[in-house]
């Protein structure tokens, strides 16, 4: 996706020079391979630092809430859905934003590549349209990019921005017949005991660093439920009950809002697949209320509205 860079810079330069925006939020190249960092270009001289490739997985919507200035943001499909969320939840105004839409072909999974070459130092990672090229000391490998996509990107059905002011390129083709809920269905088949053991094993490495919360564009409460102390609803230890309670509530707070951007999993230092919970809620909401998060500015989030005939098969 490096071919987008000149166009991103061109748009950013024009916006900053004409003073249409106060800043352009995008990415710049990170100091180590596969780690690009968010970057705010505030003047035309910063523009040449803006960068784009398949390592821009951080969700930039996370940097937009409660901003006062007019701001342009380089946004891929999931970012724009989170921006829609923000606008619907009054965290930012539409007319404050200039959205530079990226037709996204999916982000690559850094962890997977590191695991492939365990023990060998990767010095440079390059890419073309189909492949990822990994270079290092005595190392030069070409891997098809579809094999190293982030899991959420490989099942993504909204690669293209849902709102934008300008696109950097033609929209990419959206895949059809993607089964997003394979893994969820497999877990639903288990009996309660198995399910508990399964999740206990998944969550036991958690160190409660809250990186998943901090990287999540949905998490902007002034006081997070994990920081409440009077009363303290959620235990703060790494006891498995406390850890599972934390992950339960974190996922629940994202119900009907999560766009499956994968920020949480990407940020997790111990590699917990917490999307298993958010995706379950996404599936339930789709089945019960026919809603998909962040697709329209005119729809209220599903837990902020109701229909008198909502399903109540589980209520006596």
């Amino acid at each position, binding site marked *: 996706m490096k071919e987008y860079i000149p166009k991103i810079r061109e748009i950013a330069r024009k916006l900053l020079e004409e003073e249409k925006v106060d800043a352009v939020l995008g990415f710049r190249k990170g100091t180590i391979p596969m780690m690009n960092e968010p970057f705010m270009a505030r003047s035309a001289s910063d523009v040449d630092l803006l960068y784009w490739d398949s390592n821009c997985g951080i969700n930039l919507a996370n940097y937009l809430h409660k901003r006062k200035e007019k701001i342009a943001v380089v946004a891929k499909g999931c970012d724009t859905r989170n921006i829609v969320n923000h606008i619907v939840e009054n965290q930012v105004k539409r007319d404050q934003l200039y959205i530079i839409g990226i037709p996204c072909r999916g982000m690559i999974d850094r962890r997977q590549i590191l695991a492939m070459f365990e023990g060998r130092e990767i010095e440079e990672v390059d890419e073309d349209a189909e492949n990822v090229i990994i270079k290092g000391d005595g190392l030069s490998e070409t891997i098809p990019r579809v094999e190293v996509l982030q899991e959420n990107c490989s099942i993504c059905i909204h690669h293209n921005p849902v709102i934008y002011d300008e696109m950097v390129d033609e929209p990419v083709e959206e895949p059809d017949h993607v089964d997003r809920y394979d893994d969820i269905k497999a*877990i*639903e088949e288990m009996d*309660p*005991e198995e*399910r*508990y*053991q*399964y*999740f*206990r094993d998944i969550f036991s490495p958690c160190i409660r660093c809250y990186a998943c919360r901090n990287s999540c564009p949905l998490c902007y409460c002034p006081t997070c*439920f994990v920081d409440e102390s009077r009363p303290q*609803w*959620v*235990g703060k230890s790494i*006891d498995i*009950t*406390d850890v*599972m*309670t934390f992950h*339960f*509530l974190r*996922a*629940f707070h994202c*119900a009907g809002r999560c766009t499956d951007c994968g920020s949480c999993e990407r940020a997790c230092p111990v590699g917990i697949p917490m999307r298993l*919970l958010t995706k*379950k*809620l996404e599936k*339930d*909401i789709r089945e*019960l*209320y026919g809603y998909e998060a962040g697709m329209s500015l005119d729809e209220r989030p*599903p*837990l*902020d509205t*109701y229909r*008198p005939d*909502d*399903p*109540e098969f*589980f*209520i*006596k």
Partner: protein
Amino acid sequence: MKDWEPKIVAFLCNWCSYGAADLAGVSRFQYPPYIRVIRIPCTGRLNPKFVLAAFRHGADGVWISGCHPGDCHYLEGNYYARRRFALLKSLLEYMGIEPERIHFSWVSSAEAGKFVEVVSEVTETVKKVGPLKYFMKKRPEVE
């Protein structure tokens, strides 16, 4: 284990189910004595973290009851709650809580009979599934 009695936390809406509990008492109805009632202003006030906190403190079952749809004292609190409850129940079960431990009902303040029925049913199912196995926090063992 023979003497085990279930602990059931009942979150009752002030305007309906709490009134039904009161009416059941005034009417001298008999029902199983295992529920601990917590009065909430409306089912819409019920935060999912209350339910998890109940389990964490060792409740074997949780029962949430409020006004029938359309009868909410605050007009629409229970409609919002209903959506939340569907997801709450689903996610709890998904993470390994047995479906027998979490119950919801609509009981109006005139339905003392239904109140007794639901208490009996909830108690029965929780008794059958036995003491809570997970999601309670064990106290540290002290020598």
